[in-house]
């Protein structure tokens, strides 16, 4: 069974979604328990993976990925053009394991948070399950086509979940979300096709040209041989097996000479080297999802309109898909582009940190404020990754996990107050601390966690991103200095909110009844406590996560810097 753990993670929710569709309509309670059951099994599976996972690199080496499943999926013979192969290829390494664990946890919380959804529950829960599968699939896929399929498929449930179960402006928000993300997907699609045209699968090509009879006989020597033949242009184009394999794509030796992504021949598109342009396309495509200023305006709208559980998923995991995709595809396949445009990534990251925070301060709606704080905190992810050293990249990944946990809690916090009063305007509340003392404790804890107080996970992440940004070889030092102001700004918007909403004498405007303000229920505690425990654990014992990701981060940084430099030399030559 150990060999199928990842497939269980992906396909269990798909199966459950179908079951939900078959279940009779009047048994709406079943849907919840089914979804909860799926999440519980996923939790058990992820605990098994966590225990069985041995720190190993992954990144650009197929052999060091774990729980790998690899099945031929699509094989097309295009005669003179060669063959196209796509695989069902999933596996985890240090870059993805944190994301997978995070997704499972966040979906578990989201199911509990959806417990009170009675409106068209059948559709809601089946969409939630499909979303679950596609997000996890995205983090596990090691084949670009598979990744893209999951990546695209997330849009559909998200679109309906916001558009059908959302707030007053749900249609606008959901269409905006859909179109924005679709635009990003198109850019990614273009690069994916270009990459497929330019990369071969050395193992399958070896079979085609008759070096071996079966892919299982392929040894590293054979791969070397194929790569040499390829670079000597000794392989006929009809024997080439074009691949979507993300791991093969990281190796520049698998690039077909004179293809569009080839290093040696610098194809210029709009007077830009094709590879640089491809990196930028991927960057923009994923930057929309992260989101990076100025491509972020879908996020506040989507959050404000989305139901609580969907906001939790959106902030908790969906944004991470963007950053993860950038790492897994953009930077690893185009390390040259990453080195060349690190300043751009760093600058946009820094701009996001400051700009997001400024907008958060100006927000009057609690949920909008939290949404902008997400923009600001995801800016730290971008800045850390752009630093391209272990401190920065590790900090970026740490921040992804940490932000996933903390922002989930923050949106739940906004949900608690919205559930009771259907009013999220900060100015309408004052002195909540004396009316809802337990809720206030939760708010203070998570607000401080989010503003990077030591003892919580956000601190470790942010401090390392900042240290990494300053010691980075590719980023100018002013970026780090500007980014530190984000620490002050986050304190400003969170503490100002506490001061306005929770401190002071208790009085409420806009017809909010004091009697409606019931303190946190046990179901809500059930959501907050695990998140609280996680953020504190990761804040005090960072090794829990670090021991999983360290090896991969080192390999990643090493690979990007060496391969990137080599590739750049060839391009410039």
């Amino acid at each position, binding site marked *: 069974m150990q060999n199928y753990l990842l497939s269980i993670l992906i396909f269990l929710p798909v199966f459950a979604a179908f079951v939900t569709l078959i279940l009779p309509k009047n048994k709406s309670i079943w849907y919840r328990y089914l979804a909860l059951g799926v999440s519980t099994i996923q939790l058990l599976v992820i605990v098994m993976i966590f225990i069985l996972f041995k720190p190993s690199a992954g990144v650009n080496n197929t052999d060091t990925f774990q729980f790998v499943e690899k099945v031929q999926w699509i094989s097309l013979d295009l005669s003179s053009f060669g063959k196209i192969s796509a695989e069902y290829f999933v596996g985890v390494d240090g870059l993805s394991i944190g994301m997978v664990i995070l997704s499972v946890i966040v979906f578990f919380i989201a199911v509990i948070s959806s417990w009170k959804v009675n409106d068209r529950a059948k559709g809601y829960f089946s969409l939630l399950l499909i979303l679950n599968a596609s997000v996890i699939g995205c983090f596990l896929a090691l084949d670009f086509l598979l990744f893209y399929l999951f990546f695209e498929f997330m849009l559909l449930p998200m679109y309906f979940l916001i558009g059908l179960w959302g707030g007053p402006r749900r249609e606008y928000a959901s269409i905006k979300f859909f179109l924005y993300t679709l635009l990003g997907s198109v850019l990614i699609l273009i690069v994916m096709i270009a990459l497929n045209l330019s990369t071969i699968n050395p193992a399958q090509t070896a079979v085609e040209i008759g070096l071996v009879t079966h892919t299982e006989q392929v040894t590293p020597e054979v791969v070397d041989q194929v790569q040499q033949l390829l670079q000597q242009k000794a392989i006929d184009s009809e024997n080439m097996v074009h691949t979507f394999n993300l791991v093969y794509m990281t190796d520049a030796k698998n690039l077909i000479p004179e293809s569009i992504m080839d290093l040696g021949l610098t194809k210029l598109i709009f007077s830009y080297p094709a590879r640089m342009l491809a990196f930028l396309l991927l960057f923009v495509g994923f930057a929309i999802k992260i989101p990076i200023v100025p491509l972020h305006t879908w996020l506040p709208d989507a959050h404000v309109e989305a139901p609580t559980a969907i906001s939790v998923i959106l902030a908790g995991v969906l944004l991470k898909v963007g950053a993860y995709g950038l790492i897994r595809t953009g930077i690893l396949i185009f390390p040259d582009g990453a080195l060349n445009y690190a300043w751009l990534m760093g600058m946009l990251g820094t701009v996001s940190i400051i700009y997001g925070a400024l907008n958060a301060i100006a927000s009057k709606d609690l949920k909008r404020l939290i949404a902008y704080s997400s923009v600001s905190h995801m800016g730290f992810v971008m800045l850390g990754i752009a630093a391209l050293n272990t401190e920065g990249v590790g900090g970026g990944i740490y921040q992804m996990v940490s932000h996933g946990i903390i922002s989930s809690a923050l949106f739940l916090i906004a949900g608690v107050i919205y559930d009771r009063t259907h009013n999220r305007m900060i100015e309408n509340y004052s002195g909540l601390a004396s009316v809802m003392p337990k809720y206030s404790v939760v708010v203070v804890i998570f607000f401080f966690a989010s503003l990077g107080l030591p003892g919580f996970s956000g601190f470790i992440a942010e401090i*390392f991103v900042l240290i990494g940004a300053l010691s980075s070889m590719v980023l100018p030092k002013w970026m780090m200095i500007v980014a530190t102001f984000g620490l002050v700004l986050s304190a400003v918007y969170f503490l100002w909110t506490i001061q306005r909403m929770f*401190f002071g004498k208790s009085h409420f405007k806009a017809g909010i009844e004091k009697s409606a303000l019931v303190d946190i229920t046990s179901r809500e505690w059930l959501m907050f406590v695990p998140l609280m425990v996680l953020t504190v654990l990761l804040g005090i014992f960072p090794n829990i996560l670090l021991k999983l990701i360290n090896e991969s981060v080192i390999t990643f940084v090493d690979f990007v810097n060496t391969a990137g430099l080599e590739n750049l030399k060839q391009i410039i030559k």
Partner: protein
Amino acid sequence: MTQVNDILDWNPVTIMALLVFCLPLLSFIIISISKEKHQVLMSWLASLTMLMASLLSIAVLLQAWSEVYHTKFTWFQWAEYIFTMGLLIDLPAALMLVTVNFIAFLVHLFSIEYMKGDEGYKRYFAFLGLFTASMIGIVLADNLLVIFVFWELVGLSSYLLIGHWFSKEKAAKAATKAFIVNRIGDIGFVIGLSIIWLQFNTFDLVELYSLMGNIQVADGMWISASGSSLSLIWLTVAGIALFFGAIGKSAQFPLQIWLPDAMEGPTPVSALIHAATMVAAGVYLVARIFVLLNIDALTFIAFTGAITAMMGAVAALTQNDIKKVLAFSTISQLGYMLMGMGVGAYDAALFHLFTHAFFKAGLFLAAGSIIHSLHLSNQANDFDAQDMRNMGGLRKSVPVTFIAYVLCGLALMGMPIFSGFLSKDAILLDTLTWANAHQSMFFYLIPILGFGSVLITAVYVSRQILLVFFGEFKGQEVKSIKENSLLIKGVLLILSIMAIGVCWSINPFYSEMSWLMSHIEIPSSAFDIGMLSASFAPSHLMVSLISTSLLLTGVVFAYLKYRPEGQYFRNYSLETLKPQNFWQSLSYENWYLDQFYQTVFINPFHKITSFAKAIDTHIIDRMVNLFGMGSVIFSYIVAWFDRAFVDGTVNAVVFLTGRVGTATRSIHGSKAQSYILAAVIGLIIIIFLIF
């Protein structure tokens, strides 16, 4: 390249110190989970834990008297780097440990009485524990990153305690302000940390000490032993940046604005956090990183300290709130300490930190005792028990508090035979030496500011004592004012004994005889500041005479101006709200710093946030929407084109075919069924052909 980081084992001293750290933390956890009905019991228990911690810390001090203890263990591994944390106990740390614990213990005791009946009683004691633990963390940590961790936690507990009465608007604002201003200082701390990391790849203080000993400076480059080289300016930047953290926490110019507002917290909190311990953390940090500071950074520190000492003292002159006088006085005294650090008077500055911690805690608790008594006598809502205009003549009703206040006040002024005299003179002596070593008269500014502040300190302390304790009571009295219980009196008594010089030095006129000064060693820095002190040694006696005569001048001046029979005293009432002239306003408004920041930073800042919002909605989002609308319009055009031309052509073809069909239909006659049959068979054939 895995870094070799030897782990240092535990020894009895570090284990004891760890226990000292754990005890208040335990108190925090136990009180947090305990039931509200047990809160009084819990507060006694908390005091007891603090007593145990104090005793343990004295044991640690005895061990650490002549030896340094260091224990560290791995915290986490970040990629190839190992991060450790641990305890580094040298003499300053051990002394600090005793001071923090002992004052925390007294404050706990005092609070039992002071906070009686408060609705946040339980919460208050829990947070006191959290604060004490975090503060001990700063004191003991052997590592800049870990220091920063506790540094922030101290900020959090200070926020929670200032905002204890959160339903009061002012308290809520003061708490927010304190945290945010501290965070501004933390920007510097983080930048400093990052530069240290960039150059040395370690945060461990002991390693840094030895690495700093091996650095070389050549051609304006700062080269570490590992060969990493940076422009020398970064060393200065690192020092000043780390010091900027201290500026925030120790309420130095230009960030001192948060401390006066922090007086909204309960008075024992002010005594513990905003007088004796947390604000001293900045000074302590400078002591911990002393070897990282080069001469430029130290000069910067000296000037910041001296300017703050003067600014704080001037601002204390005209305040009406009994606690605000003390707050400004704290700012001023912290300025002294940092000025001392800056001129290389490492030992004297630390000495002043310790003496100040005791006499200032004494003053604050005495003020708390007065406030408590007044509050019990008049609980009307509009009665401000902190306003000195509601006081006067209190020496008769609260005699013990009066004595404590005077003793601690004399120590604050720096009167001979009191503790403050010893430490302040030691600092002043070194400022003179330092100024003399510099070839420029400009550097004499520092001793001048230092001596000037002595004069002003004497004036404001005397003013406060005269206004509060002499003459006749001015406030409205409902019940007669009574001295507080034995608990409060006992605490005050202990602190006032500590204000007497003999406790600190066998010869209370001569600071070199102090047991403390003679044991603290000035850390050797790569940048020799020792050379400065060698050239000239001003006579200690002369310094003492100058400062004492300045002090006496101040006292006499204050007596003439503020004596009960004088005009000022008679006019001093709630009605005289406004300061008389510009200079008084300048002092009363704390140099208009708040107003300055409001106009120069905060108002423009709000504009910037609204501007950012406007950009977001009116430019970025507008563009997105326009793009969306544009594509919809474009698709309408395409659709119309489709209908009019493409469809039109098709329709025309269909129409023509139809006409032709009609024309030819008559030839075949209408056999619809056979047509359908033919079509279906045709379809099946096509399907077979395709698959």
